């Protein structure tokens, strides 16, 4: 089914196998109705629509001209395999790169796949680099697949958890916990704060801002995308101001932690925090692609999707919940990382089209690969200095976003 939907394949085009043009009739055709109709009803008359000079249906001709390899790589399975290999490559590169030069044998050995390397190499890989790689893959996948899902739900390629205020709401809640946690007496149990309070707070913050934005962007019962972006802008500004206010009253150590939330980093949390939050994020990442077919129908419009048999309200509620889980968790782990959710799905759409059954898993894989690679770059290009990864993604993503807008402008379409 996947194949037939996504790909126009030339060999399938034999018109001889076409079903008869007539819609299939039920057992009791009402021939009386037909008989009393006007004479123009004769089926031959419809041939006015089949202009004689034109060739038969040639849906495959665009693809036929493409070189074979690119055509192959637009297909779901090969593309996902390629992106999976890319993610694996980014992960291995992330494990190998750094001040301590480590090779393939050290990596395999540390992961228990070969003879044990010397303890310092193993510690570097298992305690310093592997957590970052796991974070990069998980958070990158979460942000990208959430972006793709939000763009589908809002039927707008500019929707992004960051732009509509979800990330900033999560960050505000987390910052509030960091800054106000000690005065309120929550500092008594540091592990608890680190592991559960922060993720829960950022989930709550994400839920609150999403609810707010969704509610304020409804005009006459329907979500208006333009309105949503404006409301998201305002919510971002308000959260930013509140974070600034908190920064003003924060102590020195809280201020450092706070900076991390604003610009993102994959190096702040270790295994305990990852173990507490990443499973929920991964679950959301795995569940979202199951809604691909419904999201495709939703792109036609909410009323149209309902006519096609999609339970639209349930679909939207479920997806927003999954996005909250993924983005709330991602922000709790790494802070705000801009533009991944916006740009990764666009790249996939430009390459392989808007079919969500491919778009969602492919975005997850590419998002994981890109964020892992970006993190490796962020900590190696200016070593021993580490660039904040949010700064890096915004530096690359901002211009890219402008290019997308310019491209959108002239075409009146959204990929």
């Amino acid at each position: 089914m996947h194949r037939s939907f996504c790909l126009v394949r030339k060999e399938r085009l034999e018109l001889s196998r076409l079903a008869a043009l007539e819609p299939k009739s039920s057992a009791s055709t009402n021939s009386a109705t037909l008989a009393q109709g006007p004479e123009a009803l004769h089926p031959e008359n419809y041939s006015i629509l089949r202009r004689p000079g034109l060739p038969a249906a040639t849906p495959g001709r665009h693809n036929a001209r493409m070189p074979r390899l690119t055509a192959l790589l637009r297909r779901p399975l090969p593309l996902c395999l390629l992106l999976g290999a890319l993610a694996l490559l980014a992960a291995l590169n992330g494990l190998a790169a750094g001040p301590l030069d480590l090779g393939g044998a050290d990596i395999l050995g540390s992961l228990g796949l070969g003879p044990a390397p010397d303890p310092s190499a193993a510690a570097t890989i298992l305690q310093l680099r592997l957590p970052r790689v796991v974070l990069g893959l998980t958070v990158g996948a979460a942000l990208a697949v959430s972006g793709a899902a939000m763009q589908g739900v809002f039927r707008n390629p500019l929707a992004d958890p960051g732009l509509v205020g979800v990330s900033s709401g999560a960050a505000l809640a987390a910052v509030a916990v960091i800054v106000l946690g000690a005065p309120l007496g929550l500092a008594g149990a540091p592990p608890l704060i680190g592991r559960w309070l922060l993720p829960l707070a950022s989930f709550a913050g994400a839920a609150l801002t999403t609810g707010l934005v969704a509610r304020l962007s409804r005009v006459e019962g329907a979500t208006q995308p333009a309105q949503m972006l404006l409301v998201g802008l305002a919510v971002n500004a308000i959260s930013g101001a509140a974070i600034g206010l908190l920064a003003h009253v924060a102590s020195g150590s809280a201020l450092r932690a706070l900076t991390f939330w604003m610009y993102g980093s994959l190096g702040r949390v270790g295994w305990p925090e990852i173990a507490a939050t990443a499973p929920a994020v991964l679950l959301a990442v795995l569940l979202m692609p199951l809604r691909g077919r419904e999201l495709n129908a939703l792109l036609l419009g909410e009323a149209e999707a309902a006519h096609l048999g999609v339970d639209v309200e349930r679909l939207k509620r479920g997806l927003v919940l999954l996005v909250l889980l993924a983005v709330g968790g991602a922000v709790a782990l790494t802070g705000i990382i801009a533009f991944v959710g916006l740009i990764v799905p666009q790249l996939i759409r430009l390459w392989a089209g808007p079919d969500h059954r491919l778009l969602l898993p492919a975005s997850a894989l590419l998002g994981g690969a890109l964020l892992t690679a970006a993190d490796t770059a962020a900590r190696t290009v200016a070593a021993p200095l580490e660039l904040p990864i949010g700064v890096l993604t915004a530096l690359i993503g901002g211009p890219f976003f402008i290019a997308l807008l310019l491209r959108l402008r002239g075409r009146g379409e959204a990929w």
Partner: protein
Amino acid sequence: MKPGMALRADRLRCEAEGRLLLDGVSLELVPGEVHAVLGRNGAGKSTLLRALSGELRPQAGTVQLNGRALAAWTPRQRARQRAVLPQAESLRFGFSVEQVVALGRYACPQHRPEQERDIVLAALRAAGVETLAGRRYPSLSGGERARVQFARVMAQVWEPLPQAEPELGGHARYLLLDEPTASLDLAHQHGCLLQARRFAGAGVGVLAVLHDPNLALRYADRVSVLENGRLTGQGPVREVLTQELLQRTYGLPIELLHTGGEALPVVVAHPREPSLRPPTG
């Protein structure tokens, strides 16, 4: 066809922002017939179609699909029995034309991929857009998009429901078309309604909101005429569409001409405004 198979609206009343959109409108769409809905802009035609499709919940009155309240069917069951062509499309994502039509098969029992594809291509041919199958939807003209959307709704109710499902077994299908001819050229207007007739011939009940009484006369079995949310005429199209009713509905002097050899009269309007008259000698 079992008795009771129909899409039936009973005394619908719809309001929005204090305005009465529909007032006591009843309508029965029977499998195998084409039912036209006529009326001026804002008369409530689209509201009636939206209420019949379940998109709009009427303040009073009921809609029954094949003898059961519309809301009692699940969205998927409803989708297998009726397809709806909305007045405007808003798809801006770059699906191929073939993919758009395949979206129509969302709720249908899925066949093998080859068969699904055959149905999609046959629906494309039925709408006269088979040459566009590989094109990107956003690059099409307005009329081409309208025909692709028409192909999509035809694909949705292309086949009779399988008898294997006792709950839906043998239930009749319906096509609800909101101004299907609005952006089509003359040839495609007729092509579209011919296709609607064919579906009716195959046992599908077709409801079409139309603006051209000539198309209604030629292709519809029955007609409902709306004025300010109320029915002013309903019944067999040749009996209902009289000169008097058309004049009252459209507020124009109207003449029914019988041209040479044609059994059907042609509806011609004569606007009163002198500047709109053709120059006479």
